[in-house]
């Protein structure tokens, strides 16, 4: 276990480096992009004098390295800087966006894991039979349907035609939790594709795991089927699914732009899109820090699962 702990520690240290790299990458890319916050603000009135004035007001006339340095120095003191456009602190942007995003992600995840796991295991259990074929076909088909299409379909049918649920979360802003009904459709849309991909990975891993001699052995001894599948076979099928799950969570936390737009949920994805459109570099960098941190933690978690599920990997020559 000490091996695991030192590994975790080293990975966290590396994570700090990765975060720095991500921030630098995002900064460099945004710098390299045509246009800047001033141009974006000027929009279809690209009056050169006004753009110059805007640039000056936003300190965009200073060299990139200097701006980045100032921002990084602030970061060391825990200050993420403030928006170029509104002047409000970046941290307030992140705080505002994080609530809805986290809520959606948590709900989705809560349903995703048992659902995808269950479907995958079920399909693997009846490999080649009707159940499996049904699950395989449906997951494949649903996976191939883009989110917006699925979302629009759900809204049209469930919300507008049947009137069971509100079509969007418009107007609920921050207090989504107080209106659980508005969360149902977004969560369904968010679930649709990850469930499919995850279920397929679990199925693939489970088919191999279920065919292994150690599972046959556990069966011999009358271990209940559920326990065999979930406690004995599943860990062997988990590693790739864990990676996929980490990617999904990452996506849920950092980029559900389509769903946020469709259902008017002011989460981090919306903050991101606006920041890109307005070239609000400090906000983008703040987001990059959050995203990188999230990714580091999630990758670490996924790798820990792989580590645990393949304990032998630690001793190979």
């Amino acid at each position, binding site marked *: 276990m000490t*091996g695991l702990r030192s590994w975790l520690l080293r990975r966290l240290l590396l994570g700090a480096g990765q975060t720095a790299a991500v921030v630098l990458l995002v900064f460099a890319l945004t710098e390299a992009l045509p246009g800047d916050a001033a141009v974006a603000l000027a929009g279809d009135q690209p009056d050169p004098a006004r753009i110059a004035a805007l640039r000056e007001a936003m300190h965009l006339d200073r060299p990139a390295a200097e701006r980045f340095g100032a921002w990084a120095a602030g970061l060391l003191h825990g200050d993420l800087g403030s928006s170029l456009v509104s002047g409000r602190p970046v941290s307030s942007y992140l705080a505002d966006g994080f609530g809805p995003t986290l809520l959606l992600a948590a709900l989705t995840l809560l349903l995703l894991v048992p659902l995808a796991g269950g479907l995958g295991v079920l399909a693997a259990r009846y490999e080649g039979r009707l159940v499996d074929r049904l699950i395989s076909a449906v997951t494949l088909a649903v996976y191939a349907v883009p989110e917006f299409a699925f979302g629009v379909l759900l809204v049209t049918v469930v919300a507008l035609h049947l009137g069971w649920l509100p079509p969007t979360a418009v107007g609920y802003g921050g207090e989504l939790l107080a209106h659980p009904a508005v969360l149902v459709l977004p969560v369904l849309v968010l679930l649709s594709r990850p469930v499919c991909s995850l279920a397929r990975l679990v199925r693939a891993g489970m088919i191999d795991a279920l065919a292994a001699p150690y599972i046959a052995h556990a069966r011999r001894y009358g271990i209940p089927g559920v326990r065999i599948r979930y406690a004995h076979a599943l860990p062997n099928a988990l590693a790739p699914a864990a990676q996929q799950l980490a990617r999904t969570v990452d996506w849920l936390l950092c980029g559900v732009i389509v769903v946020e737009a469709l259902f008017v949920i002011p989460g981090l994805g919306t903050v991101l899109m606006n920041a890109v459109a307005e070239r609000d570099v400090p906000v983008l960098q703040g987001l990059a820090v959050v995203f990188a941190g999230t990714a580091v933690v999630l990758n670490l978690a996924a790798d820990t699962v792989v580590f645990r599920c393949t*304990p032998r990997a*630690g001793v190979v*020559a």
Partner: protein
Amino acid sequence: MGEAHAVTANTENETARIQDLRVEVGGRALVDGVSLRLAPGRITALIGASGSGKTTTGRALLHEYPPGATVTGEVRVPDALVGYVPQDPATVLNPARPVAALLQDIARTQVRHLPRRARRPAVRERVLRALARARIPDGDTLLHRYPHQLSGGQQQRMVLAQALLTGAGTLVADEPTTGQDALTKQQIARQLAAVARQGIAVLLLSHDLEVVRSLADEVHVLCAGRIVESGPPEQLWRSPRHSWTRALLTRTEPAEPAEPAGIAAPPRDTVLQVRGLTARHGTSPVLHVPELRLPPGCSAVMGRSGSGKTTLARCLAGLHRTYDGQVLLDGAVLPRSLRDRTREQLAAVQYVFQDARAAFDAHRPVLDQVARSAIRLRHRPRPQATADAERTLRSLGLAGDLVRRTPAELSGGELQRAALARALLARPRVLICDEITSGLDTVTRRSLLTHLDGLLRADPDLSLVLITHGRDTAALATDLAVLDAGRLVEQGPADRLRTAPRHALTAALLQTAPDPRSLPDGPVPHR
């Protein structure tokens, strides 16, 4: 035995029965017309050459057959649950879970009647008792390990513990004493006897004639899938009727130690040398060998199960990297990891895995896999390499169509020999064999040892290292090293150790086995 009868006399009704079983794969009969009766409290043993169909018969009791098999005959097992200790225990241990996981689950199925709060301690209590019955002394620490963190013998006993824990009325034990040292073997044998005393019907599939003789109530001799002779052991040993039985039961005379050919005995250069070796698993040291020299000729490493023999071998072979100290081949330091070794170095030190099945790729024919050694390590073109491989395999008793199959279609003993062939094709200077004779019957073992002896004579520079629990196998060795709990306790010429052992363990391992039933069931001299 009389004792056993007395206990089970009142439950004479049979539990399991095999009638005229015939298992055929691709037109070849693996088992042909076998009939068996297992009675509660009795130990029925099945002996026979490697590949004669013991495992196939044993698995029939579990209603398991090779894929694509045509099965006729009748298998009746009244009790649904059959305990099974397979020949290759590593494959039935879940690599992703600590060994405790399955044990606890088995125990849990038995404590459902208890109130919820009492279940946990009851499970724990049952598991620990099963471990003790399977002779796993430090079970508490081993429970939380993953299978790969156990030695071969420990894995085997874990699987035995699972079988004992189930409380099944029938137990199929496929080579349960393979890979165990003499002392543990005796304890396991004693345990099997005790199991039988509790009214369980035991089917023992074994090459270990000593154990069979002392344990079995009834012995069947299998030859090429047919039972050629049956009877109580005393009768068989006294007057074997079938020639094959006779061949099988003949005691192996200790092969004469293969003195290096010629008169060049005195110089005896060291081929492989170990200096100040301390090997660790994770951070805990498990093996400490200050100095060990392997001369040309045959050496044997002995020691109790879990004493670090495999770890030592893996250090030499470059499969275990986490050690301090040095391993030198002909005076030159060998890289720790085999990845850093040149092809010559790889070819020079070859290791035959204790668990042969796990060391083969399940998807490719055995012959192909064996031939790769010659292709990669000796730069032989493919056709020649295949021819070489076939020749070597044949000399080890594996011929023809058999080797063109995938590993799953070979018996345990057959695979073990294929693994040896794979190592031999590299023409090694140092050949380390980890328990390669344990899965073989006396006849095959004898011929294998003869083959190895021939190799030693043909190549006086070869250093053969046998890791073994078998005295007859160790007899081939001119040098002996004895490990105990990770320490090298004695080392020297085999003659001296046999005649004047300095350490109690040496004496215990080398002396002939007493009747297991007469052994005191006391604490085991371990660690």
